[in-house]
């Protein structure tokens, strides 16, 4: 195993991109993601890649379009307001089926908002990353190690499905340092073959076209149907979630990214007091990990779910869609760049448990403490 190093989330992510064979980075600075661009500016020229600070986010995303069409592995990075500027270009990438990895180190909004950590771009990322019929695959890291590990996955998914993959982080994960084991550089054979790329015909094959314009309705519909078949495959095979102490949990928190860390702290405290509480942490936000949530519901122990978010409540929509009225779903969140404290989340759980549903909460407490150690793994 490689040596652990101490890195900021933003820097670990950038280094991981280089090791995953990122050929081109186009971006524009914005707090709290600027370290990604700064790191790329320093390192890209040394490894023979392209780093370019564009004149705007809109220019950067269109450079991504061009380089991706030419078959390069491409990365752009921004934070909330900058991502909104890129949304037109992301829709064009989707329409032309061009793979790209897009980083959003979220900050508080709407508008220019603030610069402190937020998860308020959940709806944007999972519902409407631009106009038209398309999805973006969305990965949500929760540690600096995951800021690193999800990058290679993002490139691979983008290439495999010819789709756009967003890593939805936040200012806390971008700015914090943790020990991280950097991945081994990807070999050249790990790269997907791209017969669709605009690499020159050499006079031996028909020319390729990368274009989102399609004026014949029937043809455009056929393209969209084909794309949604790929989305079905992604939905069936790429859901990822981690569960923590869910087996005997009557209250299950659903939280991703930085909020999942806060929730785990709260859960550890509550468990010491005998409260049967666990966590489902979506790692893919799209595809939404419905299977993991259904598995917990099918266990028959859970009585209520609590969506914990750094927003006014966005992911809770997806939790409710999956739960579909089977149990109550509540919400606790902080907005505008405020990071909830473990004590606040703990309080929210206690209020729910105390309100009860006619049955004593937290039976089978001791089993839960044992589960603490046994049930700490990831469900891929």
């Amino acid at each position, binding site marked *: 195993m490689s040596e652990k190093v101490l890195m900021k989330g933003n820097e670990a992510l950038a280094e991981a991109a280089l090791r995953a064979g990122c050929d081109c980075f186009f971006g524009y600075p914005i707090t709290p993601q600027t370290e990604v661009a700064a790191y790329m500016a320093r390192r890209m020229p040394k490894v023979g890649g392209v780093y370019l600070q564009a004149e705007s986010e809109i220019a950067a995303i269109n450079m991504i379009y061009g380089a991706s069409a030419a078959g390069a592995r491409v990365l752009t990075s921004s934070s909330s307001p900058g991502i909104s500027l890129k949304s037109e270009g992301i829709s064009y990438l989707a329409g032309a089926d061009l793979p790209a990895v897009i980083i959003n180190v979220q900050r508080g909004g709407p508008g220019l908002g603030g610069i402190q950590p937020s998860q308020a771009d959940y709806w944007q990322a999972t519902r409407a990353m631009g106009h038209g019929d398309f999805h973006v695959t969305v990965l949500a890291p929760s540690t600096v190690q995951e800021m690193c590990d999800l990058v290679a996955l993002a490139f691979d998914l983008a290439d495999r499905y010819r789709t756009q993959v967003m890593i939805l982080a936040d200012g806390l994960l971008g700015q*914090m340092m*943790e020990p991280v084991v950097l991945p081994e550089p990807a070999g050249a054979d790990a790269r997907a073959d791209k017969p669709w790329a605009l690499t020159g015909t050499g006079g031996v094959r028909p020319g390729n076209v990368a274009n989102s314009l399609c004026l014949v309705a029937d043809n455009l519909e056929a393209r969209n149907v084909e794309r949604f078949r790929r989305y079905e495959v992604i939905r069936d095979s790429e859901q990822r979630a981690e569960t923590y102490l869910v087996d005997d949990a009557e209250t299950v928190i659903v939280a991703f990214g930085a909020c999942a860390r806060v929730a785990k*702290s709260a859960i550890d405290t509550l468990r010491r007091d005998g409260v049967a509480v666990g966590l489902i942490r979506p790692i893919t936000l799209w595809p939404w990990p419905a299977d993991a949530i259904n598995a917990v519901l099918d266990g028959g122990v859970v009585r209520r779910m609590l969506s914990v978010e750094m927003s006014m409540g966005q992911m809770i929509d997806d939790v409710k869609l999956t739960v579909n009225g089977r149990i109550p779903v509540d919400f606790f969140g902080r907005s505008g760049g405020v990071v909830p404290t473990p004590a606040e989340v703990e309080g929210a759980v206690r209020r729910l448990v105390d309100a009860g549903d006619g049955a004593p909460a937290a039976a089978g407490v001791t089993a839960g403490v044992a589960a603490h150690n046994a049930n700490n793994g990831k469900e891929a």
Partner: protein
Amino acid sequence: MSDIRSEIRLLLAGFGGQGILFAGKVVAYAGLIEDRELSWLPSYGPEMRGGTANCSVTLASSPIGSPLVTEPDVLVAMNRPSLEKYAPIVRPGGVIVYDSSLIDTMPVRDDVQIYDVPATGITSEQDLGGLANVLMVGKLWRETQFCAEDTLTAALEKAIPARKAHLLEPNLRALKLGKSYV
């Protein structure tokens, strides 16, 4: 304070430019060297320009949830606004170390250990200007033993980038002054 070898949560705070984040990094590297779980989280943004800068560091034996330290075991305060803001949130039984060269007030707590160190004064006298932060880390180590002694030196060496290797010697001197300050 609970067992310091299993978990210690520190908040370091002062003005931007005092090396608060660097001091936190030294503590973080100590955790890395001892293969402990650790997190380091800086304040970022406009407050760093002339305002307060602060840094949350946690060293632990199990994975760290929130990296944001809201109830520190240890507060290192290097200006008055930081001491006034954060002294009240230190856990009972915790430790406050503050730079008494720059802070002319005393924290009003009788349930924590309080150490006043004229760090900026000492470092200026010793021709170690700008290294009050490192002296404070030395004093912090003296009072909490948050890592092994060898680790502390190694951590400081690791925190100083190769291109600034000439600064290692004065840094080590400042650390030593802190470690021996009674």
